[in-house]
């Protein structure tokens, strides 16, 4: 493949489209809405995007394998309440609390993974079940209480900006994790295996990919990452509550799908997903600044979700039709 073809492929990709949309929305927003150009706006957008990005990283991998995890926000909520309860019981070391939460998240993810890979149940059904179950357990742990007396040093540290900027430093943690996930997905045999099992699990198994084992660990990792997002959530809002993060799974799934990951599995990448997380954040906060009422925002987010499922599929269909026409015209043309 020559350079211009490669360039055309990158430019024509959904990833590039989402990135361009992000840049366009940011520029138009900065020009038309008072406040979007300010550093504080980007600080707030980043703070809001961090938990979504943390969960979207493993979710991307899960959806690429053709599965889904809808229990992530409930895992976040349950880990928040357990962190709160542990603090009440006198666990005062932050590393210990984080370790407990991550282990809990991993265990909750393992339960999902076990039902899905061990019993061969559909992930949609299992994780809708655990969505309700884990949220219920969160209410068992804390009821309608809120644990909020964390030391100021912790809560301040969670939202501390990178020196010289307004951007919270936790975004660097997200960036490092994003690089790790991107390398695994895009540059290792494991990553290629994920795409393979998303396209055709049967064929992947015959090709030697450990489908069940890989999926099991993906759910474990998703649980742990959701719990990590829960730790951040608790410290950012200085409040552990059973209803923390309710509905966040929709924001995550919306970003993953808008980012170009096919809901049927086998297609998509992390760049598009991260761009989509940012795009949705900028759009929401920007429209809020422009005094668009909450009801209209919900309609817009819903429409974007539908568009993100339909959009990439339509683009792919059109491209395939175009290619078929071209192949019939010149049978020796290279397929991309």
């Amino acid at each position, binding site marked *: 493949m020559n350079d211009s073809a490669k360039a055309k492929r990158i430019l024509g990709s959904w990833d590039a489209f989402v990135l361009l949309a992000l840049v366009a929305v940011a520029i138009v927003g900065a020009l038309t809405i*008072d*406040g979007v150009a*300010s550093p*504080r*706006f980007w600080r*707030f957008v980043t703070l*809001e995007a961090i938990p979504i990005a943390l969960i979207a990283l493993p979710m991307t991998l899960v959806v690429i394998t053709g599965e889904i995890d809808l229990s992530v926000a409930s895992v976040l909520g349950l880990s928040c309440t357990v962190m709160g309860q542990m603090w009440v019981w006198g666990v005062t070391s932050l590393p210990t609390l984080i370790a407990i939460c991550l282990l809990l998240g991993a265990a909750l993810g393992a339960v999902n993974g076990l039902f899905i890979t061990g019993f061969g149940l559909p992930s949609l059904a299992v994780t809708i079940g655990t969505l309700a179950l884990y949220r219920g357990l969160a209410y068992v742990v804390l009821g309608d209480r*809120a644990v*909020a007396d964390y030391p100021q040093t912790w*809560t301040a540290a969670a*939202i501390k900006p990178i020196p010289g900027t307004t951007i919270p430093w936790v975004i660097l943690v997200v960036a490092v994790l994003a690089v790790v996930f991107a390398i695994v997905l895009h540059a290792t045999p494991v990553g290629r295996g994920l795409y393979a099992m998303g396209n055709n699990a049967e064929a992947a198994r015959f090709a030697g990919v450990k489908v069940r084992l890989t999926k099991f660990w993906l759910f474990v990792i998703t649980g742990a990452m959701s719990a990590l997002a829960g730790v951040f*959530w608790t410290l*950012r*809002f*200085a*409040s552990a*509550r059973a*209803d*923390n*993060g*309710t*509905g966040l799974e929709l924001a995550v799934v919306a970003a993953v799908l808008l980012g170009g990951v096919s809901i049927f599995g086998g297609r998509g990448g992390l760049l598009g997903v991260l761009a989509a997380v940012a795009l949705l954040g900028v759009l*929401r*906060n920007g429209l*809020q*600044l422009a*005094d668009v*009422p*909450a*009801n209209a*925002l*919900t309609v817009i987010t819903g429409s974007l979700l539908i568009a993100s499922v339909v959009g990439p599929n339509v683009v792919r269909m059109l491209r395939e039709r175009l290619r078929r026409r071209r192949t019939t015209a010149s049978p020796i043309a290279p397929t991309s």
Partner: protein
Amino acid sequence: MRTRIRAVAAIAALALATAGCAEDTTTTPGATTGTGEIKSGLKVAFLPKQVNNPYFTTSDNGGKSAVEEFKGTYSETGPSEASPSAQVSYINTLSQQKTDVIVVSANDKDAICGALNEARQAGAKVVTFDSDTKPSCRDLFINQATAEGIAKIQIKLIADAIGADGGEIAILSATANATNQNAWIEMMKTELAKPEYAKLKLVDTVYGDDQDQKSFTETQALLAKHPNLKGIISPTTVGVAAAARYLSGSTYKGKVQLTGLGTPNQMRAYVKDGTVKAFALWNPADLGYLAAYAGGALASGLITGKEGEKFKAGKLGEFTVGKDATVLLGDPFTFNASNIEQFNF
């Protein structure tokens, strides 16, 4: 609220203002010029627990009329679901829009603190109403009612409904360990000990757990157990509506009196059919109105939130800042057949 507390460290302007309005607190106020008036052009934003909630629509409309009186710019914004994190995002937006006054009903007393303080550093004044935050995160809290005020009005309403002969009464509460309910019940007992209520006898307290079905069956059981019962007080919106539904479909209708804390929309039918003569709650429109005036006074530098400071709140008159930067709206509002049509929440 209207108790005369000696003004502490009164600013000259404030002293002038209070002296100036001492003889007249009922006329429509607002835009008259002079020292100690609320600045015009203030941006006042109401941030309820959630939008699309009739209670907050009523309170925010009260705020709107106040903001219009002092010639400010009113806006209402907020999440469609009552979650603290969604509220934080709206607080951030308001602080970026350089709003002068944020009037908020908190979904969580701690979780929105950081965002509120950031908004205050950016120059906004924060007034909480209906549901408070930690005192360190806001400039003033507008309290809708005190336990004492609620207890007083409940006993008065049931005594009026039953009439001079008195008789046995019972309480249908929420849960057995609800702090506010128990405080009110204690206060009601104190109130009942007064000589004017000597003919009322509290015979039972039952708990409907703020569940409609349970409150309904508890009412049923209460009437079976106490054949001479003359009245029921249910200081919870769920309980009073369930009890009213039971009474209105039974032979006790009109014979056993009922009052409590309820909302007009839930109670309208029972007031009209004669099951309930009167019930109480605060008037959310007044609550929003007072909150807007308090915010206007803060943003104009007339008050700072110190105990003893006084400010004028339009048609509601003069208010004094109490302990912990709290302002009390006043006695609960009584709803009856003559006024219930004016309310929709």
